[in-house]
C-alpha cells in the first residue's frame, strides 16, 4: 500500500530534566483514546514504530505513566496518558537491507480487562472495531453471554437506541466504548426472545463466528486526495525516530 505517511500519526514525548530536554517523535500507526476533558485524553492503545532506543524510551515513559502528545490525520493535537498498569508488547519488523524497526504496542488497564474472564463485573468495554458482529462477539466473550452471530444487528440497534455505545477517538481503526453489565445484557436477550425480536437458529450445534475485523484493513479511499501521483513521499520532519536534545 502506498502513501502510508498520510495515514500515520505522530507521538511525541518530551522529558524535561534538570539541564536538558529530550524530545522524541515516533510514528504512530494505531491509536485509541477517550477524551476526558478538552485537550486531555485517556489513551487505551498506542502503537509506535522507531529505533531501538526511542521505542525503549517510550516503553519506560508508558510504565512511568508519563504524558505524550498525539497528532494524527483527523485528530487535533491531544495530550494522552495510558494510566496505571498499562501493558506493553514489543516486536521487531525486519526489512531487507535496513536496520530492524522496533514496534511497541501499549494497552491501558481498562482495555486489557476486556480479555475474556478477566473482569466480568466491569461496566465499560473499549473495543477496537465498531463492526456489529465484532461488538457482539467481544461483549459475549467478556460477559459470557450465550448469543449467536445472527443477533448482532439487533444487539447493535439496542445499544444505539439506549445510547450505550459511543464512538471514541481512533487512528487507523473505529473504536467504540460500550457501557453495560452482564446482568443488563442478559435481561435484553431474555426480553428479545420473549418478544420474538430475536430467535434461535433452526438447527442445533456449535456457534460459529465469522469475524471480519477491519483493524488491519487500510481504507484507500480516505487518502486518495493529496497523494503524490508518482509515489514520491514529501519531506518528513521525522527521521528514524529523531531525538532532539538541547538545553532547556
Amino acid at each position: 500500500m502506498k502513501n502510508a505517511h498520510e495515514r500515520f500519526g505522530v507521538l511525541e514525548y518530551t522529558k524535561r530534566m534538570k539541564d536538558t530536554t529530550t524530545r522524541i517523535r515516533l510514528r504512530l500507526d494505531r491509536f485509541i483514546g477517550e477524551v476526558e476533558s478538552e485537550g486531555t485524553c485517556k489513551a487505551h492503545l498506542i502503537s509506535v514504530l522507531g529505533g531501538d532506543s526511542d521505542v525503549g524510551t517510550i516503553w519506560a515513559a508508558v510504565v512511568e505513566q508519563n504524558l505524550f502528545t498525539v497528532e494524527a490525520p483527523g485528530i487535533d493535537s491531544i495530550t494522552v496518558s495510558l494510566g496505571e498498569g498499562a501493558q506493553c508488547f514489543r516486536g521487531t519488523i525486519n526489512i531487507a537491507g535496513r536496520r530492524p524497526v522496533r514496534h511497541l504496542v501499549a494497552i491501558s488497564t481498562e482495555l486489557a480487562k476486556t480479555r475474556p474472564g478477566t473482569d466480568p463485573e466491569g461496566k465499560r468495554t473499549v473495543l477496537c472495531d465498531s463492526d456489529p458482529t465484532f461488538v457482539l462477539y467481544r461483549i459475549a466473550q467478556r460477559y459470557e453471554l450465550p448469543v449467536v452471530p445472527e443477533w448482532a444487528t439487533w444487539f447493535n440497534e439496542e445499544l444505539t437506541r439506549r445510547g450505550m455505545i459511543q464512538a471514541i477517538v481512533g487512528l487507523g481503526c473505529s473504536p467504540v466504548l460500550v457501557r453495560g453489565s452482564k446482568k443488563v445484557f442478559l435481561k435484553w436477550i431474555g426480553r428479545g426472545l420473549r418478544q420474538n425480536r430475536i430467535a434461535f437458529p433452526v438447527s442445533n450445534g456449535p456457534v460459529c463466528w465469522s469475524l471480519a475485523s477491519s483493524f488491519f484493513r487500510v481504507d484507500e479511499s480516505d487518502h486518495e486526495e493529496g497523494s503524490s501521483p508518482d509515489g514520491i513521499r514529501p519531506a518528513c520532519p521525522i527521521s528514524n525516530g529523531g531525538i532532539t536534545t538541547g538545553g532547556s
Partner: protein
Amino acid sequence: MVYRGLPLDEVEDLLPQSAAYRQAGRILFAEPVSTTGRPLTPLHAGHVGLLACSGLLNGIFGHNDERHISFWQAVKVVDKTEEEDGVITVREKERFSNELTVVFSTGQVAILK
C-alpha cells in the same frame, strides 16, 4: 528530494505480522478457540464434562422449550481476606472457577456458578 526515514509503506504492510500485535491481539480480538477433530476412542462422560467446562462445547442444545444456548467459561476469582493483629494484613488468593450461562428459547436466563 530524498526521504531517509522509516520505509513506512513497507512497514505498514508488515505490521499485521508484528510480534507485538500478535501478543496484543489476544486482548484486542480475543479470537475464538476452535477445536475440531475426531477422537481415537469415543469420549466418555468425564471427557465430555471436561470439554464442556472448558467452553469447547458451547452451542445450541435441546428440543422444544428446553432448547438453549450454553456458554461455559473459566473465570478468575480473587478471594480477599483481612486479618487484624495490630496491623491489617490483606491476603488475596487467585483461583479459577467455571461458570455456565444459559439462555432458553423461551427467554429464560440462568447462570450456574
